[in-house]
C-alpha cells in the first residue's frame, strides 16, 4: 500500500516532531541528573548547641551518636556572628554574608527618624489606603508581608542550579522567600496577633493584676454558677475604626467538686483535668462578616479549678491548614504537613518562655510545653526525612536554644535565680533535651553513605546570664545621654524622656550601641567621621574598664566597631558598635528597649538565665561532619559556600567564606 505524497509528508513531519520531543525529554533528564549529580547533603541546624556542653555530654557517654560522628569525621567550634544573636547568625549562614550585607543586626531595629522599633527580619503591613464607612474601615488593596533580609539564600542558588532542597523552619525566613522546594518559616514568624507570641491567662484571683505582662495578658474573670465566660483575644481588627482586637467567646464549666472542667469554643467541646493540656484547638476570628475571617490555633492548660480558677491559653498560632499569612513554599505545604503530622506550632519562637518568666507557667508546666514543641519537630522530621532522596535537606531544632535560656539556672549554683529544690527536680532537663537531639542524629547516621555529606551545626553556644548591665543607665550616668527636665523613673515609650539635643549615644537591642549622628538620627548632634570615631573610642575605653564591684570581673570584654566588623551596603544602618559582654553578663531587659533602670548592674533573677548575646568569641557554635573539615576556624559565613561547593556551584562574589572542606 502506498500513501499519497501529501500524507507521507505529514507522517514524516509527525514522526519528526515526536522524535524531537523525545530527544528534548531525554536531554532534560540528563541535564537534570548532571546538575544534581546524585549528591546528598544533610544539615541539622541545632540552635544554641553549645560546644562545651556537647563535649561534656559526649565524654559522659550521654550523646553517643555525636561522639561517633566526631570520632569518625570532624568536630570544630564554629565562629558565630557579630553580635551572636540568632536572627543575625542564621542570616550569616543563609547568605554567607555578614550583617553589613544582609542587613540584620539584632532582633529589633529602629527607625532613626522616628525611633519606632520594629522586628528586624520582617514587616507586616495592612493596606496603604482605605475608606471609612461609619465604624467600618474598608481596605482599598491588600496588605503585605515583607522579608527584610537582603542577599540570596543558599536554597535560592540551589534552585537556580536545579538542586532539589528542603528547608524546615530556618530562622529569618518569614515570609518565606519564593522557592521551588518545600520550606517552612521559622523564628521570626509571628503569632496571629502579629507578636512574637502573646499568651493569655484567665483567673478569678483578685491578687493577679489584670492587664498586659511581658509576652502575655492577664484577664480577670468571674466564676458564676461554676461557669466562666470570656473571650479569646485575636488579631487587631483593622476593618474597624481604631482597630480593636477581635475576639471569640468561650466558656468553661467547672465541676462543683472535682478538679475538672468542660471547655466550649465555637462548636468544639472538650474536658480538661486540672494540670492537663488540650490539643490544638482551631479558632476563627471574624473581622468582617462573610469576607474577613482569620483562623488560628491555640492550646489550653487548665492550671487550677478550685479554690481559684486559672486557665492558660497559648499564643494564637497561625493555622497551618489555612494560614492567614504566608508561612511556607509552596503555600499549601504547611497544610500538607499538618495533614501528615497533625497541627503544630507555626509561631517562630514556639516555646512559651514568657509564660515561665511571668510565673504563669511553672517549671514543670513549661517543660511539658517545651517537650511538645520538640515532639512536633521530631514528628515533622520523621515524616520528611524518609522522603529525602537527593539534593539538600535542612532541618532546624529550636529546643536547645530556648531551653538553654530557661533552664540554665537549674545547673548553675552561681545563678541568682538558682533554686536548689527546683534544681534537684529539673536539673537534668536540659541534658535530656541534648539527649533527644542525639537520638535524632542516631536516626540520620544510618542514611549517611559515601555520597552523602552530613553537617551538624549550631549558630552559637551558650553561657550563664547572671547579671544584667544597663547600658543606657551607664550612658546616662556618664553624660552621654541627657534626659528632659523633670524626667525620672521609667517612661512607657522607648527613649520617651530623652533630650536628643544633648544626647550623644544610646543603647538599643541586645548588643547595639548607637551614636546620635547628625543627618541620620532625627535630632542627631554628633558629626560623622572623625568626631564620631573619637567618641566611639572614648566610650569603648570606658566600657572595657568597667568591673563588677562584687568580684572585680570585667563586665564587657570586647567592643566591635561596625565600620570594622561589617562590610556591605547596610553596614552604616545598624549599630555603630557592638557591645560584647563577658560570660555571666548581658544587656538588661529594660535597657534593650531604651529604658533607664536605676542600677547599672543588677542580678538576673529571671528564669531566662542562660544566654549568648555576648562577646562573640566566648559563645562559638559547633560544626560536626562525617567528612574531614579542613578549616581550622570555620565560621557561619562558610556554610553557604560549603553547601554550594558540595554541588559544584561556585559561591557568589558577596559571600565572605569558603567551603570548610577546602584547605586555606
Amino acid at each position, binding site marked *: 500500500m502506498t500513501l499519497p505524497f501529501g500524507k507521507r509528508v505529514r507522517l514524516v513531519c509527525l514522526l519528526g516532531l515526536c522524535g524531537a520531543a523525545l530527544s528534548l525529554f531525554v536531554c532534560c533528564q540528563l541535564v537534570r541528573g548532571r546538575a544534581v549529580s546524585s549528591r546528598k547533603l544533610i544539615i541539622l541546624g541545632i540552635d544554641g548547641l553549645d560546644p562545651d556542653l556537647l563535649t561534656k555530654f559526649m565524654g559522659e557517654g550521654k550523646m553517643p551518636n555525636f561522639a561517633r560522628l566526631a570520632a569518625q569525621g570532624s568536630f570544630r567550634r564554629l565562629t558565630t556572628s557579630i553580635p551572636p544573636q540568632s536572627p543575625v547568625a542564621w542570616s550569616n549562614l543563609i547568605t554567607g554574608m555578614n550583617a553589613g550585607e544582609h542587613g540584620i543586626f539584632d532582633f529589633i531595629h529602629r527607625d532613626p527618624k522616628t525611633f519606632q522599633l520594629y522586628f528586624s527580619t520582617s514587616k507586616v503591613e495592612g493596606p496603604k489606603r482605605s475608606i471609612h464607612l461609619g465604624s467600618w474601615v474598608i481596605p482599598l488593596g491588600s496588605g503585605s508581608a515583607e522579608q527584610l533580609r537582603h542577599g540570596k539564600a543558599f536554597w535560592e542558588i540551589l534552585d537556580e542550579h536545579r538542586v532539589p532542597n528542603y528547608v524546615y523552619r530556618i530562622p529569618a525566613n518569614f515570609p518565606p522567600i519564593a522557592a521551588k522546594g518545600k520550606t517552612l518559616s521559622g523564628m521570626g514568624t509571628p503569632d496571629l496577633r502579629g507578636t512574637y507570641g502573646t499568651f493569655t491567662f484567665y483567673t478569678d484571683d483578685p491578687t493577679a493584676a489584670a492587664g498586659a505582662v511581658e509576652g502575655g495578658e492577664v484577664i480577670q474573670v468571674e466564676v458564676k*454558677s*461554676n*461557669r466562666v465566660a470570656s473571650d479569646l483575644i485575636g488579631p487587631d481588627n483593622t476593618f474597624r475604626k481604631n482597630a480593636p482586637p477581635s475576639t471569640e467567646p468561650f466558656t468553661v*464549666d*467547672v*465541676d*462543683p*467538686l*472535682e*478538679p*475538672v*472542667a*468542660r471547655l466550649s469554643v465555637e462548636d468544639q*467541646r*472538650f*474536658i*480538661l*483535668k486540672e494540670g*492537663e493540656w488540650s490539643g490544638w484547638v482551631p479558632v476563627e476570628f471574624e473581622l468582617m462578616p462573610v469576607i474577613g475571617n482569620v483562623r488560628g490555633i491555640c492550646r489550653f492548660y487548665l492550671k487550677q479549678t478550685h479554690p481559684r480558677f486559672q486557665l492558660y491559653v497559648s499564643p494564637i498560632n497561625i493555622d497551618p491548614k489555612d494560614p492567614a499569612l504566608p508561612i511556607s513554599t509552596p503555600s*499549601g505545604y504547611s497544610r500538607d504537613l499538618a495533614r501528615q503530622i497533625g497541627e503544630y506550632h507555626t509561631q517562630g519562637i514556639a516555646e512559651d518562655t514568657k509564660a515561665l518568666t511571668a510565673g504563669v507557667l511553672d517549671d514543670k508546666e513549661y517543660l511539658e510545653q517545651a517537650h511538645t514543641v520538640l515532639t512536633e519537630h521530631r514528628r515533622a522530621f520523621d515524616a520528611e526525612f524518609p522522603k529525602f532522596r537527593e539534593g539538600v535537606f535542612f532541618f532546624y531544632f529550636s529546643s536547645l536554644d530556648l531551653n538553654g535560656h530557661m533552664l540554665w539556672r537549674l545547673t548553675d549554683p552561681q545563678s541568682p535565680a538558682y533554686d536548689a529544690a527546683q534544681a534537684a527536680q529539673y536539673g537534668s532537663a536540659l541534658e535530656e533535651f541534648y539527649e533527644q537531639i542525639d537520638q535524632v542524629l542516631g536516626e540520620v547516621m544510618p542514611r549517611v553513605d559515601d555520597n552523602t555529606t552530613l553537617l551538624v551545626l549550631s549558630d552559637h553556644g551558650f553561657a550563664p546570664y547572671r547579671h544584667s548591665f544597663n547600658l543606657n543607665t551607664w550612658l546616662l550616668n556618664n553624660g552621654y545621654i541627657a534626659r528632659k527636665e523633670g524626667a525620672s523613673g521609667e517612661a512607657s515609650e522607648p527613649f520617651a524622656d530623652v533630650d536628643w539635643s544633648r544626647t550623644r549615644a544610646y543603647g538599643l537591642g541586645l548588643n547595639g550601641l548607637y551614636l546620635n549622628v547628625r543627618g541620620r538620627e532625627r535630632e542627631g548632634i554628633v558629626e560623622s567621621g572623625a568626631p564620631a570615631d573619637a567618641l566611639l573610642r572614648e566610650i569603648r575605653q570606658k566600657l572595657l574598664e568597667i568591673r563588677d564591684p562584687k568580684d572585680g570581673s570585667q563586665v564587657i570584654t570586647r567592643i566591635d566597631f561596625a565600620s570594622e566588623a561589617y562590610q556591605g551596603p547596610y553596614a552604616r544602618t545598624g549599630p555603630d558598635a557592638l557591645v560584647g559582654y563577658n560570660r555571666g553578663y548581658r544587656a538588661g531587659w529594660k535597657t534593650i528597649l531604651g529604658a533607664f533602670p536605676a542600677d547599672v548592674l543588677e542580678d538576673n533573677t529571671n528564669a531566662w538565665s542562660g544566654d549568648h548575646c555576648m562577646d562573640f568569641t566566648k559563645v562559638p557554635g559547633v560544626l560536626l561532619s562525617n567528612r574531614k573539615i579542613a578549616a581550622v576556624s570555620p565560621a557561619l559565613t562558610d556554610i553557604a559556600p560549603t553547601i554550594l561547593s558540595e554541588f559544584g556551584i561556585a559561591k557568589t562574589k558577596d559571600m565572605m567564606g569558603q567551603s570548610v572542606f577546602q584547605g586555606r
Partner: protein
Amino acid sequence: MTMVAHAEAIAAFRFSPLTSPLAIVVVLSLVVGLLMVVLFGYTSDQKAISRAKDQLKAHLLAVRLYRDQIPVVMGSYGKILRGTGSYLKLAFKPLLYVIIPITLLMVQIDRYLGQTPLPVNAPFLLTVHLGEQSSNAKAADASMAVDAMNKVTLELPPEITMTAPPVHIDADNEVVWRLAGTKDGEYELKIVAAGQSATKAVCVGSDLPRISTVRLRGRFWERMFSSAEPALPEKSPIESISINYPDRNIEVAGYGMNWIWLFFILSMVAGFIFKELLGIQI
C-alpha cells in the same frame, strides 16, 4: 480457601477504593441524579412545562427585540414574572415527590457518612442531658437538683475507659464524661439516673458503621433526622444522651468536605446530564 483467607479477602474489599466513602458518594450521586430526573419526568406534566418554558423564552426574546418600545418591554417583564410563577407551580408537585424520598435517603446515608467512628484511644465526650423534671421541678431547691445530677452513674464495658472525672454542669442539667475506646467494636454504655437505666451505643474503629450521635426522649421529628436509636422511655429522667463523633471529611483534590456538598454537586451534574440523555424537561 481457609476462613482466614476469606476474612482477609472481605476486609480487603471493604477497604478498597471502590468502597471508600468517596466512591460511595460518587455512585450514589449518579444513581440519585438519574432517579431524580426519571421521577420528575413521571410525576410532572412534561408538555405543560415545555410550553411554560417556551413562553418564557418568547417573552425574553421580546425584551431583546423590542427594547426601544418601553410598553412592550414592560409588558414582557410582567409576562416573564407570571410565566415564572406558572413554571414554579408546575415544578412544585414533582419536586415534592422527588424531595421527600431524597431527604429520607440522605438522612440514612448521613448516618454512615456524616461522622467517623471514634478512633481507638482518642478521647470523646458522652453528654447526658437530664430533663427539667428530674433536675429542677421535682427538686425542692438547687442543692437537690445538684444532688440528682451527682447521682447519675455510668457503667462501661471493659473496652471503654473513663479518662477524667465527670463534669456536672448545673446550668445545662448535664453530666459530661470523657471516655476513650481501647479496641475496635460497637459497645453499649449504661447510664443510671434516678433509679432508671438507659443505654447508648458507641462505635470505635475506622470502619463505615451506622452511627447514631444522639439518643433522645420524645421529639419525634428531631429523632427522625438525628438519631438512629430507639427513643428513650417517656418516663426516663434522661432527655438525651449524645456522643461527639468526629465529622467525616471526604478528600477531593486536596480539600476535605462534608459528603453532602459533594453529593449535592455531583447529583445536580448527573441530573443535568441524564435530563439531556432522556429528553426530560425540568
